[in-house]
């Protein structure tokens, strides 16, 4: 059964099992591999995408749940906070293995889109659902602050 929604700004119809998690629909059917599979239970955040601008875990979100709504993946990031986050990620050399970083960047971007000047506590609140086994957390925190500062300029 087809599901229609807006994917990275483009009206999209995916003909797939509506029960399929959005993660696998965007990866295997829409062909967007930037969103990663880490746990399948919304425990690690590697699969984070934006649904109507909010960070959600695509591994537990059914495809049917996004019908008619806006989904953004790492491939579709365009906002000023998103650009600031990605630039800060490179500037501060955040990634190590890099596998979780799409999810980290999606969570960080959603945070800055809502709260352009987050405190450390805000960052803890928004980012503690995203696991990084390389433990790049110090740099993620620094990069979110750096992105926030760069947007003030």
């Amino acid at each position, binding site marked *: 059964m087809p599901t229609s929604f807006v994917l990275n700004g483009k009206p999209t119809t995916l003909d797939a*099992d509506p029960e*399929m*998690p959005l993660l*696998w629909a965007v*990866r*295997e*059917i829409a*062909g967007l*591999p*930037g*969103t*990663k*599979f*880490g*746990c*399948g*239970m919304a*425990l*690690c955040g*590697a699969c984070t995408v934006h649904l109507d601008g909010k960070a959600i875990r695509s591994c537990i979100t059914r495809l049917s749940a996004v019908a008619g709504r806006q989904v953004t*993946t*790492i*491939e579709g990031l365009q906002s000023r906070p998103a650009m600031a986050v*990605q630039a800060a*990620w*490179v500037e501060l*050399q*955040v*990634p*190590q*293995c*890099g*596998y*979780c*970083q*799409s999810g980290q*960047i999606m969570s960080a971007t959603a945070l800055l889109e809502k709260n352009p000047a987050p405190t450390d506590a805000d*960052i*803890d609140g928004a*980012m*503690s*659902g*995203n*696991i*990084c*086994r*390389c*433990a*790049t*957390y*110090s*740099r*993620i*925190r620094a990069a979110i602050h750096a992105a926030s500062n760069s947007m003030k300029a």
Partner: protein
Amino acid sequence: MSTKTLDASQTTRRNFLKAASGAAATALTLGFEWSGFSRRAAAAGAPAASAAPFAPNAFLRIDSDNQVTVIAKHLEMGQGAYTGIATVVAEELDADWAQIRVESAPADAKRYANLVFGTMQGTGGSSAMANSWNQLREAGAKGRAMLLSAAAKEWHVPVEELTVASGTIHHSGKNRQATFGALVATAITLPVPDHVTLKDPKDFKLIGQRVARVDAAAKSNGTAQFTLDVVFPGMLVALLKRPPLFGATVQSFDPTAAMAVTGVVKVVQVPRGVAVIAKSFWAAKQGRDALMVEWDESKAEKRSSAALMDEYRQLAEQPAMSARKDGDAVQAIHDAARKVSASYEFPYLAHAPMEPLDAVVKLGAGSCEIWAGDQFQTVDQANAAHTAGLDPQQVSIHTLYAGGSFGRRANPGSDYIVEAVSIAKAYGVEGTPIKLQWTREDDIHGGLYRPMYFHKLEAGLNAESRLTGWRHVIVGQSIMAGTPFAALIKNGIDGTSVEGAANVAYAIPNLAVELSTTQTGVPVLWWRVVGSSHTTFAVEAFIDEVAHAAGEDGFTFRRKLLDQHPRMKAVLELAAEKSGWTQGPLPKGKGRGIAVAEAFNTYVAQVADVSVDEDGQVKVDRVVCAVDCGTPINPDIIKAQMEGGIGFGLGAALYGAITLKEGRIEQDNFNGYRVLRMNEMPTVEVHIVPSTEPPTGVGEPGVAPVGPAVANAIFAATGKRMHVLPFSRKA
């Protein structure tokens, strides 16, 4: 020094290459073949044309478009190997960093062996830079020398009059300059020099600088390609249902319900279980959920962790194998004015890399192609060949970025690779690419854990509170037993069980380190920093207890015992100084602890500051880290590896445990197997000791001291010692 010849097709094209000379000779001979050149020419089905790239050795290729490709024999799993490898080659080549790209090497022990491991290609033991250092410097320097010769030949000038910087060669007298790319056509006609002079370290332009990681941009925009992302037309996805207990086997299975799932193509039995092969992950997952399998559990491991630890505790009281014996520790402790004893318990640990294990396999007639974040290329090649019924040279491996590993992908049995090959073979349709995907539950249940250990320590102090005797008994499984690495077990001692303990750096006149090796049905493997993931905790937590008994603070007591180990003493002093150790005790509810380690020839000391609230909740506020890893190749990557190692080690110390209940693993995912999260990450300060010693590794050593440093800090704050890992587990 040995001489290595090339195969006939290569020798006709090029001068016979001799081993390089000088101190680095052992490292040099391996790489020098015309790999890139011959591969490309063969692919084009034609002999070298004028557009052929310049490939003076197995690690370097320069194209006429001025692209410099560095071929990495090591896996990039986050530790920065690609950047470090490229930096060393680019430095000696005098290339511009912007013209560098990195490509992974094919599996080939002849050209790409890890020189620390001997004759196998693989990444581990924090050895990527240590084993490559001389080899890659030579590779870059020989390329540079040949490009200079090419310019000299083209311009009819003496080589001595040429200068090279940032990928451009100049002749000031003739006012000529050329990029490397412009010199490729001439350079490929020249002989590879036998001898080259390496740079004086004071002339380094890239080594020692914060060179940007080659993979940072792709890993910040979703384009970095992992095995999960490999897609081929007609590719199928397989999930494997494995036994619920280690050692159980398939008794029977009924594929009916699995086959009824839309998208499921086939259900096949393989040695490790029953695989569901489907057109998509989701179909394979639903198919596997529906699959009915009866297991034969008669030979399975059915013990619980608690029962195993009871056995280990009893074994610690029985005679064990000697790993180190200086003087008479038992007598010295017996005669001591004061005795200290403690035991420490360590659970099984999963590596849990963010990318669950995965591999893509394409079996053809007489060929097997593998795509994976491959860490043991030639081991995996041999195991894949054996499984497929092929010769190793018929197996090609494409090494992709690994989404973490921490040792998991470096396994002697190549578990996930062998599974994927066996599934492709059982599917039986030649040329069909099949991706084996593990889920997180597969990963947590999948074995190959850091072993469980029990440590018992006793020490004696004389009337002057000097440490006179130390006895350390370690009980646990061997990582190397039952693998091809078992040949390294000497006199019953698996070095990976006792490293960090048998070589304890403290000056102790009477010292005994003993090992009791156990056997269980639980498969085990090295986990980041290997033996030091437990031995450092035991040694550094216990020396703190001894220091306390001697009435001295942890830093002063350690320092006095390290005169024979100046590099270890230096990092200890640096960490103490930078942390403000000597500024006296912290306020109530806070504590500071110190620990030091040597792992893979790198020295690390850490000072942890903790806060403990009234409910006993521990928050690690800050970790100050001093590291001596020889010549620092990239200070920012060293810093990143210390930060990451601290977070990784801290998560394990606070929460990490895989436990068995009647053989079944009690954890399933990141809810039961808890790892460190953002809100628990301390502030980390890293201080790098300046050094001109050869570089040593940084991927693992930072993991070792954080657990005991935090444990010692908790003691300083609360008076409570941590004897059971993880700290969240009540003893």
